[in-house]
C-alpha cells in the first residue's frame, strides 16, 4: 500500500471493534485513514467480550445508541462472513417473580413505544422456549431483534472492509502520544489532521482527562451442548449490576455459541488492570448461573478468562471532538456495550467529522460533557 507516503487525513489509534468500525466509516466517507494498534486487530477488550448485540434501557441515551446500533448490525448481517458467527437468537430478559414481571411489562412498553419489537412471555411460554431454565420463573421479555456475534471476528471483518475502502492498517505500532496534528510512534511524529483516540480502556493514557477506568469481567465457556441454551438469557437484575459502580457484582447472563457451547457471564469489578482470575467472583458468577439454569452444574467448562470494560461515570461512551486539543476526536468508553455500539459510534463520529446530519442526537455522548461535569463539581 502506498497510503503511508501521502500523509493520512485521519489516524485511528486502536483496532478494537470501535476503532475498526470508525476506520470503515471514515474510509467510506472518502478520508485517507491510517489505523494503528500496539498489537493486532481485536486483541484488546474486544477479544474478551461476549458479543451480545443488545438494546438496553438503562437511560434514554443508552437506549437510543443501542437501538440505532442493533439496527445497523441487522442491516450489515447478510454481508457478514461466517467468521463473525452472527446469530439472530434474540434476548430473553427473565423475571424471577411477580414484581420482576411487572418490571418486564414496563420494559415492554418502553421498547415498543420506541419502535423496538418485544414480547412478554409468561412462565409457561418461557419454560417452553428455554427448557433448561429453573422452574418456576414468572416470565420474560423476548427481544427478538437482538443477536450475538464473535467480536474479534467482527472487528477483523470491519477492518478488512476498511482496508478494502482504502484504509491502511499497521499492527505492532504503539502510539506514545497524541499531539496537535500528529501522533508519536517510536519517537517519530506522524502528521494527521484528525486523530481518533479509540484505544478503549487505555484511552486516557493518550488523552489525559478522559474519565475511563477498566472494569474487569470474567467469562467461562463450556464444551458443546447444542440446544441447552437458545437465546441470550439475562436476568433483569443485570441492568442494576451494570449500572451501579460497586466494587463487585455478578449477574446471570448466558449466551449460546453457534458451536453449541455456552458462554457464561458476567461479573464486574473495579480492581485496576489485574487480569488474574478472582476465584471468589468466578464462584459467585457460576453459582448464579447454576441457580437459574441447574443443568449447567454438570456442564464442562474448558476455559475461563477476564477482560476490561472501558467504563465511564455516566455509563455512556465518549464520542466526538476533544476540544482540549485541536484535531483530536474520541471514540472510547463503551463499557459493556462496545460490541453493540461500535457501529452506531462509528456512524455518529463520521457524521460529525464530515458534517453530515446524524440520525440520532450526538450531544449526550459528547466527550466534553465530562469536563463540564467536572467543572460543575469542582
Amino acid at each position, binding site marked *: 500500500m502506498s497510503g503511508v507516503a501521502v500523509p493520512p487525513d485521519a489516524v485511528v489509534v486502536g483496532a478494537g471493534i470501535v476503532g475498526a468500525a470508525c476506520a470503515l466509516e471514515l474510509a467510506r466517507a472518502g478520508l485517507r485513514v491510517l489505523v494503528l494498534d500496539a498489537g493486532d486487530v481485536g*486483541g484488546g477488550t474486544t477479544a474478551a467480550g461476549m458479543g451480545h448485540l443488545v438494546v438496553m434501557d438503562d437511560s434514554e441515551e443508552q437506549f437510543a445508541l443501542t437501538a440505532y446500533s442493533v439496527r445497523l448490525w441487522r442491516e450489515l448481517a447478510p454481508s457478514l462472513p461466517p467468521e463473525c458467527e452472527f446469530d439472530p437468537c434474540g434476548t430473553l430478559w427473565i423475571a424471577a417473580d411477580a414484581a420482576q414481571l411487572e418490571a418486564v411489562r414496563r420494559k415492554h412498553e418502553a421498547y415498543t413505544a420506541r419502535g423496538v419489537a418485544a414480547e412478554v412471555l409468561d412462565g409457561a411460554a418461557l419454560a417452553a422456549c428455554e427448557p433448561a431454565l429453573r422452574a418456576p420463573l414468572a416470565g420474560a421479555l423476548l427481544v427478538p431483534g437482538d443477536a450475538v456475534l464473535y467480536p*474479534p471476528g467482527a472487528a477483523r471483518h470491519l477492518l478488512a472492509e476498511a482496508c478494502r475502502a482504502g484504509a491502511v492498517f499497521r499492527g505492532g505500532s504503539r502510539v506514545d502520544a497524541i499531539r496537535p496534528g500528529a501522533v508519536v510512534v517510536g519517537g517519530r511524529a506522524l502528521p494527521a489532521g484528525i486523530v481518533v483516540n479509540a484505544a478503549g480502556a487505555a484511552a486516557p493514557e493518550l488523552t489525559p482527562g478522559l474519565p475511563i477506568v477498566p472494569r474487569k469481567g470474567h467469562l467461562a465457556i463450556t464444551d458443546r451442548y447444542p440446544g441447552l441454551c437458545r437465546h441470550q438469557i439475562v436476568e433483569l437484575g443485570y441492568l442494576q449490576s451494570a449500572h451501579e459502580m460497586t466494587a463487585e457484582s455478578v449477574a446471570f447472563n448466558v449466551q449460546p455459541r453457534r458451536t453449541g457451547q455456552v458462554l*457464561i457471564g458476567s461479573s464486574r469489578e473495579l480492581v485496576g488492570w489485574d487480569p488474574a*482470575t478472582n476465584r*471468589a467472583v468466578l464462584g459467585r458468577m457460576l453459582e448464579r448461573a447454576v441457580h437459574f439454569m441447574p443443568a449447567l452444574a*454438570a456442564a*464442562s467448562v*474448558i*476455559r*475461563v478468562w477476564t477482560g476490561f470494560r472501558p467504563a465511564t461515570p455516566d455509563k455512556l461512551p465518549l464520542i466526538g471532538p476533544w476540544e482540549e486539543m485541536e484535531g483530536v476526536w474520541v471514540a472510547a468508553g463503551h463499557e459493556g456495550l462496545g460490541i453493540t455500539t461500535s457501529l452506531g459510534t462509528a456512524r455518529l463520529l463520521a457524521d460529525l467529522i464530515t458534517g453530515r446530519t446524524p440520525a440520532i442526537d450526538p450531544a449526550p455522548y459528547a466527550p466534553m460533557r465530562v469536563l463540564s461535569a467536572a467543572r460543575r463539581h469542582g
Partner: protein
Amino acid sequence: MAETAPRRVTADVAIVGAGPAGIAAAVRAAESGARVVVLDEAPRPGGQIWRHTTRGTLPRGARRWLERLDASGAQVLSGASVVDADGPRLLAQWRGEPLVVSAERIILATGARELFLPFPGWTLPGVVGVGGAQALLKAGMPVAGRRVVVAGSGPLLLAVAAALAGAGAHVAVVAEQAPAAAVRRFAAGLWRRPAKLWQAARYRAGVPRARHRPGVWVTRADGDTTVREVTLTDGRRTWTVPCDLLAVGYGLVPATELPRLLGCRIERGRVHVDEYQRTSEPAILCAGEPTGIAGAHAALVQGQIAACAALDRPAEATSLLAARDAWRRFAARLEATFAPRDELRTLADADTVVCRCEDVTLGRIDASWGSRAAKRYTRAGMGPCQGRICGAALQYLFDWTPDRVRVPVAPATVGTLVHAAALNTEPQDPS
C-alpha cells in the same frame, strides 16, 4: 459463598500424577511416615507406561513399585483431575465432585504427551499416535494380521513396533526420521549408560533389522474410510507402503500447564528445577517428564529425590543425585538425536487439518500471527483439548510461544468451579 462446602483433604505432601515419578515420590514420602495424597485423572495408577488393565502383564519392576504404593499408606485418588491450583492448594474434580487439597508441599508429576506433527492424511481413521497405539494394545485392541507402519521419532517407535509384532501384527516398516548416523551414535552410547529405557537389542528382536529405517519419514497417508497407504521418503526417493494402521508420533512434550498455572519458571518448554527437584515456586516440586523427557527410570529417581526434598531431608537423596545427573545427560542426547528435522515443518498443505477439535486447516493460519491471534481468528486451540494437541504442533511449525495458561487446566464442571474460591480460604472446622 457456595451453599455446600466442598470436601477437603489435608496432607503433608500432595502429588499430582501417578506415573513412575508420582509413584516413586509417594512411596518414598509415605514410607517415611508422611501423610501423602496422590491425585491422577486416570482410572488407575501407573501413568502412561504402567497403566495396564491387569498388573500381571507388567514387568516385575513396575509391579514392585505398584505393590509398594498399595502398602505405603499413601492415599491414592484415581479419577481425580486437578483443575486449578494456588500456592500449596489444589482444586480437583473427583467422581464428579469438587475436592480441595491442602498440603505443606506439592509434587507435580504430570508427565508428558505425544507430539503430533500434521501431514496430509494424519486425521484419517487408522492413523494413531505411537503412544496411542500402545494404549490401544494395552486395552486389548486386536491387531493380529493387520499391516502396520510405525513412523515418527524416538525410542518409543521400536518399543511399540515390537509390541505390535508381539501381538501378531505385520510391521511393514519402522520409519525413524532421525538421520541414520545420529541414531547409530545414540545406540552405541547406550552401552555405556545405565539405560534400560531403550533396550535396543531386545526390541529389535521383534522387528527385523531391515525394516527399521532411520532417516525416513512419512509425507502423507491416503485412504477412503480408513488409511490404505502411506507415502515415505528419505529425502531423495519417495515410495508408498500399503497398510491399514499407521502409528506415528514425534516424541514427547512435557505437560507443563499446571506448573505454569502455579507460576513455576519454564525454560525451553520444561519446568526448571534445582538439584533437589524444587521449582522456582516455594513449596512446589516437580519430577518426571515435565522437567525433560528422559523415560520411566529417570522419573523414578526424580520422584524419590523430590520426596526427600519435600520432607526437608535432602541429605537422604544424596545417593540418588549421580544417577539423576546421568539421566539428565541421557535426556539431552535423546533430545538432540531425535529432534524433528526441518522437512517435517513443510509436510502439511493448505487443506491439512491442524486443530482437530475445531477443524481448522493450515491454510487458514498465518505464520505471522502467534498462538493468541490464531485462536482468536480461527479458533485453533480453543476446543475441548485447549491446544494440548495442536498447540505443540503449531509452536513447532511456526516457532510460536504458547499462550498463557488459564483456569481450568483440565475440563471441570461448572459445579466444581463454583468452589474455586475454596482454594484461597483456610479449611473450616468440621463442626
